[in-house]
């Protein structure tokens, strides 16, 4: 079916307003975009690792979720939804659920709950092949506890556990490439996406992930205004710059086939993505030019690697 933005945007919201997430947060925009890909007649159980999204959307006695929702702990969203999905198969098999009722299983975790503390639980769920989608909303640090570094934090970012100081240029390590790692689990579908102007990329990938049988994974770049220090109104622009600088390439791995979803006509210099963000302010101080060069080299290396995988 051709993508129709107006139609998609008019679908009923499955994460309703009134939650307590920040203005300019990429996570909620991303979650709503993913849920729009659910066919309206399908029910869903939403899982959630502990994090901003959980504490701000299900604060007792209020919930913003229209679908059934389960939060268990920080490190076990993969395992928890494994249990829910298995229960679905058990109850279906035993005739305890109506045959015409279809449930889909989608879990959300931040990069802390996904790349780090929940990595084992995620890996287990992916390897076992539960029919579910794990969506990582990657904002590149433990934002809920106050902007501590994670293995998703980019090199040189200023975080509260990698603070910039006279003896420090921020995080010293390169970020983990989680989408590739999950693709190496040989799951049917892995994609990297973010918020684009027409929301087509995230919609198409979410729909594919939700309606592909087996364990699927989406890595969603979800900017955080508190941690990245940009103007809240600029969230979409930040995402565009992440994509057009090739910091956050859009691609998918469909049954082992790597495909680039978007190739910028003109690849922008990484400075364009870094400059609007307070966490990289120190990179633009005189004397730190070499850090920018190194950052650019890392982006280029990964981009070339991705082009090779996509056989471009």
């Amino acid at each position, binding site marked *: 079916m051709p993508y129709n933005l107006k139609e998609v945007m008019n679908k009923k919201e499955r994460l309703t307003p009134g939650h307590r997430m920040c203005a300019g947060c990429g996570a909620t925009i991303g979650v709503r975009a993913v849920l729009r890909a659910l066919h309206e007649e399908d*029910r869903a*159980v939403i*899982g959630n690792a502990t994090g901003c999204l*959980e*504490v701000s959307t*299900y*604060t*007792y*006695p209020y*919930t913003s*979720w*229209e*679908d*059934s*929702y*389960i*939060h*268990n*702990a920080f*490190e*076990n969203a*993969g*395992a*928890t*939804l*494994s*249990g*829910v999905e*298995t*229960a*679905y*198969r*058990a*109850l279906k*098999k*035993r005739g*305890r*659920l*109506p045959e015409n*009722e279809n*449930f889909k299983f989608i879990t959300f975790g931040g990069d802390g709950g996904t790349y780090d503390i929940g990595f*084992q*639980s995620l*890996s*287990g769920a992916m*390897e*076992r092949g539960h029919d579910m989608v794990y969506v990582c909303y990657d904002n590149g640090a433990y934002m809920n506890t106050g902007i501590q570094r994670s293995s998703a934090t980019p090199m040189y970012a200023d975080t509260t556990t990698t603070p910039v100081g006279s003896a420090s240029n921020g995080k010293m390590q390169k970020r983990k490439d989680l989408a590739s790692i999950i693709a190496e689990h040989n799951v049917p579908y892995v994609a990297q996406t973010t918020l684009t102007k027409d929301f087509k990329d995230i919609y198409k990938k979410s729909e594919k992930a939700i309606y592909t049988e087996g364990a699927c994974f989406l890595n969603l770049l979800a900017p955080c205004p508190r941690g990245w220090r940009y103007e809240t109104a600029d969230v979409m622009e930040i995402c565009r710059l992440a994509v057009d600088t090739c910091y956050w390439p859009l691609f998918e791995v469909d049954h082992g086939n790597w495909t680039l979803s978007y190739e910028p006509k003109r690849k922008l210099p990484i400075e364009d993505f870094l400059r609007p963000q307070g966490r990289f302010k120190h990179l633009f101080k005189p004397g730190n030019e070499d850090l920018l060069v190194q950052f650019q080299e890392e982006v280029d290396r990964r981009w070339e690697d991705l082009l090779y995988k996509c056989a471009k």
Partner: protein
Amino acid sequence: MSMKDRMSGNEAVAYAIKQINPDVMPAFPITPSTEIPQLVSTYIANNEMDTEFIPVESEHSSMSATIGAEAAGARSLTATSSCGLALMWEELLLAASDRMPCVLALVNRTLSGPININCDHTDSMGARDTGWIQIYAENNQEAYDNFIQAYPIAEDERVHLPVMICQDGFITSHAVENIILNEDPDVKDFVGEYKPEEFLLNPGKPIAIGPYAISPYVMEARKAQEEAMENAREVIKEVAGKYRQKFGRGFDFFEEYRTGDAEFIMLIIGSAAGTAKQAVDDLREKGIKAGVLKLRVFRPFPAEEIAAALKNAKAAAIMDRCESYNGHGGPLASEVRAALFENNVRIKVLCYTYGLGGRDFTVESAYNVFDELSQMVNDGKEFKQHRYIGLRSSQSPEVR
């Protein structure tokens, strides 16, 4: 009708699981409980049951998936021991606070370190305050009988709490003994169908589980959980009564063995109770009025009932297969002494730590305990109240 067989404790529990045929079982292997998921997997592979088995990648995930499955509306369980229970500790609290009526087959093993695979109660006693009902077995028969009672207790609307069915690692889990098994239809009838009121997969009635709660709500939630644990007392008794009526076996909170006129009572949990009973029989022949109180239910703790059972004795020995490093005894010792004080039962007690890391608790060990109680009462001898029994010393032949 019933069937006679010979089985180990692990086999007995796996057999009960097969008879109940729950919906979902996530599990991860750990000695000495490994056989339980192995046997269940084999039953499934041979089409003798059709539970969905999830071979998870850790015990933290086994309890996480158990909670997920139970929340979704499926009757769920897992099995573990020792470090596995320790790894799922966070999830034990969540299972209870989310009010999940799931079941855990625990095969008691000590916790590291040093790493050791043998029995003591360090694992389950460490989890005693996680909000789970805890029921202990002396032998394979009791492990089997207790397991069949687990879901009727857990799923009762007055309770809605998870249940841990404990048996002693190797001593019970691996020793093959005679057992009486119930017929499949009788077990299915006793356990009944699972009909959850609220669950994730209830079409058209979505629910949310696992909220963030601010201070005005947390204490009320905990109090409701505490009340459920109090309610569990009468439900455990009811279920035990029904089980006795149907199958002719079992006890409520504890078994009283020759305690009626006993001057000296040993309060003990698990397989060592069998050894203690032998010592009691021997001592009775010598005219010593000894008895055993074997505790079956540790959570909820039957404080009043224990105090009443001990009140006519001259002295009691409280036996902990666990150290709690509080400087004055194990967890059972602390709870029993509090129960006696609260109920104005002022008998003399000695608290013993025994059998750690699989150390044998022998009939001779039990004689020594009763002898020390007698010396304390009859000879006025004073003892340090917290004592170790069966400890090797520099004088032991194997050390020399």
